[in-house]
């Protein structure tokens, strides 16, 4: 495969290109299907789509190991898929079936898979940041070499939990990656209405936490930035704060008339679609061909069908089991 490496920044193999593109397409199509199933009332509750932000999850997850811990928000389908959770178990979860990755108890906002060290799916904005610090603290105490990666939106940065967590992580010197997905809106509140300082990466300095920003619409830029962050964390044992600037193409959730932004703004950002961007990069560098994309689309399409079939065939927990999982058996 060495011969296939060409001048992309950074140079990547065809294999890696295909893998990353595949993951982004999988997330995109999975979520499009989810939206469709939502309107069919197969999926209920809140459904927060990640469409437009795929480069962040995919670019990040690639560099994490099986031992690393991951915590995410309610907008976590992309993270879960990129982490390798089975699409069927995610879909079944959103159907509320007991074959789901959280036994159906959690739904879209609470995807969990302990075997993949995927610790949710947390729906209180900012509420998982302190836990991430604690998991990293446990790693330090146990002499482990893993890191904890914590995803959150730019809205979460206004919460006191962000502040407390950054300070604690820096003070204790623990290996946590604070990864902010700045999609410019927290529900309908634009960045400029939620933060007095909008260059969010500047907030790291208040805690002495190494910080950087990156273009969250470009999977390779994210990958580079994350690799740098991980290298720093692993070599110093200290936290790192990475801001990925991105955009959500869809509504905040399925209940959102998007009164707070112009359609032209959305269209402008769509031109920077991470999947388009990356497939063009790969095509222009002749790493892949149009056929490869078709192959991926077909594969993804089959996988999603399989996931839906799995969810459809799933079963509901009996009502008698209602009080399960309140306390350990």
């Amino acid at each position, binding site marked *: 495969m060495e011969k296939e490496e060409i001048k992309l920044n950074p140079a990547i193999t065809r294999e890696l290109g295909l893998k990353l593109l595949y993951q982004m397409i999988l997330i995109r199509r999975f979520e499009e299907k989810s939206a469709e199933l939502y309107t069919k009332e197969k999926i209920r509750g809140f459904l927060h789509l990640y469409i437009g932000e795929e480069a962040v999850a995919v670019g990040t997850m690639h560099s994490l190991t099986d031992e690393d811990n991951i915590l995410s928000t309610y907008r976590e389908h992309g993270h879960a898929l990129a982490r390798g959770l089975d699409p069927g178990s995610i879909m079944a979860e959103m159907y509320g079936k007991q074959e789901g990755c959280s036994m159906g108890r959690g739904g879209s906002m609470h995807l969990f898979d302990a075997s993949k060290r995927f610790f949710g799916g947390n*729906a209180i904005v900012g509420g998982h940041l302190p836990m991430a610090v604690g998991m990293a603290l446990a790693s330090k105490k146990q002499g482990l070499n893993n890191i904890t990666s914590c995803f959150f939106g730019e809205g979460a940065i206004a919460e006191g939990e962000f502040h407390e967590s950054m300070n604690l992580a820096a003070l204790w010197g623990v290996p946590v990656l604070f990864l902010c997905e700045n999609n410019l809106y927290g529900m309908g509140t634009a960045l400029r*209405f939620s933060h007095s300082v909008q260059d969010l990466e500047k907030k790291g300095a208040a805690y002495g936490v190494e910080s950087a920003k990156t273009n969250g619409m470009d999977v390779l830029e994210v990958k580079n930035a994350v690799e740098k962050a991980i290298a720093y964390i692993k070599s110093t044992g200290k936290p790192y704060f990475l801001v990925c600037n991105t955009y959500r193409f869809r509504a905040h959730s399925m209940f959102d008339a998007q009164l707070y932004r112009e359609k032209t703004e959305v269209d402008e950002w769509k031109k920077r679609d991470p999947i388009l961007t990356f497939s063009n990069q790969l095509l222009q560098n002749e790493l892949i061909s149009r056929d490869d994309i078709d192959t991926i689309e077909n594969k993804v399409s089959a996988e999603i069908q399989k996931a839906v079939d799995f969810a459809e065939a799933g079963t509901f927990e009996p*009502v008698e089991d209602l*009080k399960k999982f*309140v306390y350990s058996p």
Partner: protein
Amino acid sequence: MTDKTTLKITYREALKQGMHEALITNDKVFLMGEDVGRYGGAFAVSKGFLEEFGEDRIMDVPLSESGFVGAGIGAALAGMRPIVEVMTVNFSLLALDQIINNAATLLHMSGGQINVPVVIRMNSGIGNQLAAQHSHSWEPFYAHIPGLKIVSAGTHEDARGMLLTALESPDPVVIFEYTSLLNMESEIPSSSGAVDIDKAKIRREGKDLSIITYGPGVYKALAAAEILASSGIDVEIIDLRVLNPIDNETIINSVAKTHKVLIVEEAWRSVSISSEIISRIMENAFFSLDAPVERLCGIEVPIPYPKHLEDASIPQKQDIVDSALKMIQND
């Protein structure tokens, strides 16, 4: 008489009208909360307000529950009349210290010098499969705190009118509104306005059994009453409305009449509003009882996502009917 004309509106619209009236009538009143402005309110309750009243009076705030609720309290201390919207009760835990240790306590700590005329509105209860972190019913927490007035809008009239009265109070008022009722339509008198926030209300008179409830329990109990009526059972329905301080009198009078009580509450069972109501009946109407008070409450489980489990987590109309029947038949 215009008093007799009615208006068919949703609960959402009722909330909106109340708030609109408050904003029109008193220029010290302003609304602050997450997404109340540009988004139009998480539940579209304040849609159009930003355009009508401007940024000064309709303030979008960052995700900082402790910060902006505390700021609301501070603004109240300094002469304004803030309506602070906490999007849902679920996030209010982050502001609980502000509400308890500041709003509820300053009057006392200052020896009566400092009033905190803040109104805090929150959406409460089970939405529609929103799962464990987004389905809380925190009425029992707030009702435990002296210094707070806690009201619960279980009907369209109260949704329309409670806020207006709350804004007259010199002390902090917390208003519980209900996600599950937002789309529900009902007729209210077109003249509806401020309502008292002191007394419980008998929503239906009856003689066989008192059903005491609040919030989403009210319409459920009324629907159950219709079914029971067709079996010749005549239940009285009390909407508590005010969860702190609780109106004992209305409860005790009803027990004296029916001698049997069923309490319906969506919050978790242990240490809840229903516990307190049972205690007050024990203390004040024990000898009026023909049988032990019973209660239907939220099952003690973090609310599960799937519809069938969510439904099973809280009392439903049919559960009320069944319990009432059993209580009457045990006679």
